[in-house]
């Protein structure tokens, strides 16, 4: 449909008469003809000729038409009236008989007001104010020459060039003349010139293919500037497309996916097992969603729970501990998990229960929840990306090496690391990458080595180190797709058009 948009500018194709008349005229002249000349010689409006030119152009190389614009002077409505009936001042002069005319009567004439003052300043007439019976107007000269009318008649006859610019501008000021710009075409024969119009086909049909008639037909050219028709399809959500890519990256790096389908977590696994003290601000009502129903968890690995309690309240495993009164009631409180690291803790505990330790690489990408103040970049829930490696003898250098490999897959090669604090990792590092657009280092993730106070109570062997890192899924996606407000990306207020229009996700390009 949209390829035949040109049809809008077409004349009714039945009206081929004007097209053929145009072509015959073009045929007769040498070197071309102006569309305005065509209009006057065919006696039709110029716009009709312009339409005809466009129609013929659409048929292929029949003619060539080069657009030109020219300026010329035209009479206004008032100017035409003057060319026919004379200027207002001349009409006033003629209306005054030998014996004069009272001023009030004169003013009643159609040209009275304008004509009176002009005729006065031309000194054609004079006013006798003291005349008995009221002011009276008399002729001052025998005859006059109506120059204005003459000039306008010249323009009307197409001789505007005989007038001086100054004269024309004066008449323009009096709103008798106007300068108009006319867009016309200089028409010449095309490579495929013919004076006969052949009807063009819009589309190839099965019948034409069957009969072979397509060989004789001419086809209307397509407008390749038009857009195509959008395919009728479904679309994946951009954030989920990015999630798929991150999953792919972890799988390429040999990481196994953790089961993170448990949004409800106990404070024990979310905090205590990670050596996060019970008075830590993150465990505050202001930061974490607690549950009223079911309010508490039961059923913890009892031995392990005792070891966790001890390391918090008394220390051990080479640690001073936090030396406070650890309470089971705090650990039992159910919450919406604040990080997927709660699942990592469960997985590492499970790993420690194996008969023999085997190295693991784990990842997850799933929802976490924070009871935070909401703004353009923070929602109460977001997706956390997490990677964990557990093996004997892993170093801080190894963590940086793994992060380098991971971020290289995201197209980020320039990294640097900043010391940070996190209750369950030591050392802890914020990961910064150089952002070319912003011309500065921006934080792209957090990382660290899990503390011995977390790992040893689980039962992991002494020499095993566990390195880990995390980042949010939303932030790289917002940067990738140029979205400033997170609500335009996540949640029900998303604009579906954005979903329909979002490109494929290649993180490294």
């Amino acid at each position, binding site marked *: 449909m949209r390829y035949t948009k040109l049809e809008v500018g077409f004349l009714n194709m039945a009206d081929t008469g004007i097209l053929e008349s145009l072509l015959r005229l073009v045929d007769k002249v040498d070197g071309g003809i102006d569309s305005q000349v065509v209009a006057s010689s065919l006696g039709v409006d110029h716009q009709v000729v312009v339409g005809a030119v466009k129609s013929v152009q659409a048929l292929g190389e029949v003619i060539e038409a080069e657009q030109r614009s020219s300026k010329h002077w035209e009479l206004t409505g008032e100017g035409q009236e003057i060319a026919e009936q004379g200027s207002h001042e001349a009409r006033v002069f003629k209306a005054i008989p030998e014996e004069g005319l009272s001023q009030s009567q004169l003013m009643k004439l159609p040209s009275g007001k304008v004509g009176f003052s002009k005729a006065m300043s031309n000194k054609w007439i004079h006013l006798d104010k003291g005349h008995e019976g009221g002011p009276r107007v008399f002729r001052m000269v025998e005859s006059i020459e109506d120059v204005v009318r003459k000039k306008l008649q010249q323009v009307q006859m197409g001789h505007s060039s005989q007038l001086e610019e100054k004269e024309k501008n004066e008449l323009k000021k009096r709103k008798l003349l106007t300068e108009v710009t006319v867009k016309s075409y200089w028409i010449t024969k095309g490579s495929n010139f013919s004076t006969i119009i052949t009807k063009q086909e819009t589309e190839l049909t099965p019948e034409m293919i069957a009969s072979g008639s397509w060989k004789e037909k001419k086809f209307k050219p397509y407008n390749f500037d038009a857009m195509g028709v959008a395919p009728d399809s479904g679309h994946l959500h951009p954030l989920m497309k990015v999630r798929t890519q991150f999953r792919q990256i972890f799988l390429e790096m040999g990481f196994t996916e953790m*089961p993170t*389908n448990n949004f*409800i977590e106990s404070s024990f696994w979310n905090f205590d097992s990670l050596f996060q003290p019970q008075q830590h601000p993150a465990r505050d009502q202001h930061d974490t969603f607690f549950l009223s129903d*079911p309010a508490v968890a039961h059923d913890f690995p009892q031995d392990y729970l005792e070891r966790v309690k001890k390391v918090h309240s008394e220390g051990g495993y080479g640690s*001073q501990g936090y030396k406070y009164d650890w309470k089971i009631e705090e650990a039992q409180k*159910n919450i*919406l998990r604040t990080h997927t690291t709660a699942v990592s803790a469960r997985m590492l505990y499970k790993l420690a229960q194996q008969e023999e330790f085997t190295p693991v690489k784990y990842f997850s990408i799933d929802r976490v929840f924070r009871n935070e103040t909401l703004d353009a970049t923070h929602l109460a829930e977001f997706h956390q990306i997490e990677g964990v490696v557990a093996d004997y003898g892993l170093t801080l250098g*190894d963590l940086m090496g793994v992060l380098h490999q991971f971020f290289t897959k995201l197209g980020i090669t320039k990294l640097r*690391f900043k010391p940070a*604090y996190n209750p369950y990792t030591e050392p802890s590092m914020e990961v910064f990458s150089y952002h070319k657009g912003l011309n500065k280092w921006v934080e792209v993730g957090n990382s660290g080595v899990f503390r011995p106070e977390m790992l040893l109570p689980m039962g992991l062997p002494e020499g095993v180190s566990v390195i880990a890192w995390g980042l949010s899924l939303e932030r790289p996606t917002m940067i990738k797709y140029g979205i400033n407000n997170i609500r335009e990306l996540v949640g029900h207020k998303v604009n579906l058009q954005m979903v329909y229009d979002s490109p494929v996700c290649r993180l490294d390009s």
Partner: protein
Amino acid sequence: MPTVSVKRDLLFQALGRTFTDEEFDELCFEFGLELDEITSEKDIISREQGDQKASEASDVVLYKIDVPANRYDLLCLEGLVRGLQQLSILLPEYIRDPDQNWLSLLLSVQTASVRPHAVAAVLRNITFTPERYDSFIELQEKLHQNICRRRTLVAIGTHDLDTISGPFTYTAKAPDDIRFKPLNQNQEYSATQLMGFYKTDSHLRHYLHIIEDEPLYPVIYDSNGIVLSMPPIINGDHSKISVNTKNVFIECTATDLTKAKIVLDMIVTMFSEHCDQPFTLNGVVELAYRTETLSADYINSKVGINETAESIAQLLTRMCLKSEVTSDGAEIQVEIPPTRSDVIHACDIMEDAAMAYGFNNITRTTPRTYTVANQFPLNKLTELLRLDLATAGFTEALTFALCSQEDIADKLQKNLKDTKAVHISNPKTAEFQVARTTLLPGLLKTLAANRKMPLPLKLFEISDVVLRDESTDVGARNSRRLCAVYYNKTPGFEVIHGLLDRVMQLLEVKPGRNHGYYIQAAEDSTYFPGRCAEIFSHGKSIGRLGVLHPDVINSFELTMPCSALDIDIEPFL
């Protein structure tokens, strides 16, 4: 992260050199600090109260520095200087003055129930300047907001020792039995009156709840019965300190003794540098020095570097952890000063060594850990289905897991009690009352937000809902659901039914009663009567499909007919 505001020029003077802003920013980065903002009092006032009020204010350059949450020793200028002065091998030596043990704080048993612990110390012959005095007040405020957890764990009171006389008594009394003139007031009040008086105080009202409902309030008296303070609310006016105070009595009352000792140690170690005998302290201060012994191999193997014991000892000493190599050369003895309460394990020392070495100077290596990757089967199935649902012409929505009770109950014409929903106890708004029990409300809200889009609208989501489940340790579990809606001028039951058929085809389940799937008319108040069916697969109910009830459509502010499919995909694993 707490933010500390210091005057730039004073900081540079104390550090013994100047930096450009960029250089200082870089120094902060290496130490895990952040130069958050460069400003001045004038800037701050003009931003908050307009240019006019700011005209009188100082335009001395201020650095606002973000400090890691566990580094209480960096919360004031004095501490920052000690932390950043990496080349000063002359570390301060904090000692207790053995001659001045006359000072004591007697604890009475009455405090046990309300605020059982108290520790105290004296800064003797201190010389305040306006800057030092401000820093002293500022440090107390920072400690109150951070380690003291807004005075709940620890509260600090400072007094002019020359106006009072020991021994001091820390006790607890009934509110009507406590009378004193509080700080900066002209008359005496009873504690009961004070609690009412401070109800409208923009600063103090936040602390009233800590003792408000207790039968006895904590109070500290001197030997003449003068009230020093009523912690954690307010000090007495009698003993208030000023820039001219020479001897400062500091008391910390607490519910957590460990933290009280850390706080007291922190204040006295920081400010004793302005005393005639620097770093010499009186009172019940812990000033616990501790020695950790560790090997160079431990540091090298954890960090991934290869340094000698001597060079590691030097690195640590630069970080204010005085270290020496043992005589046999095998180990490093590290002295942890009372200012470094954050160092509780050898790994904390290892981190300081890595920081001193420079994180960014460590060679990046690749671990040789060999593993085979596995996808989580439920996520694998989800990924495959998502792709095929989009191929089937449906567009993926991504909606919130938390919602209001109304969304999952009233609006769907369901009884909240029947939903098996888990409830949140502290939602800030109704949007976070429950975890969703169905994906349907999220999809209907997505439709409502996109009513202007061309019809039909076809949406789906595959994600988790949360249900109560007594059989799990936490009493709840996730359930992976597939939900789709068709919204158009006609209900399109056949479209949504066709989608079910397609999903079943993808899951290799054939139509049929026994080992296949079938649908059967069902009653469900969310759906239009006679237009709802239950879906069975292998004889088990897996969900519903149908045309939504007009009242449900209305309650989500929709205007067109809508059909929906809602199934559990976990049975297909």
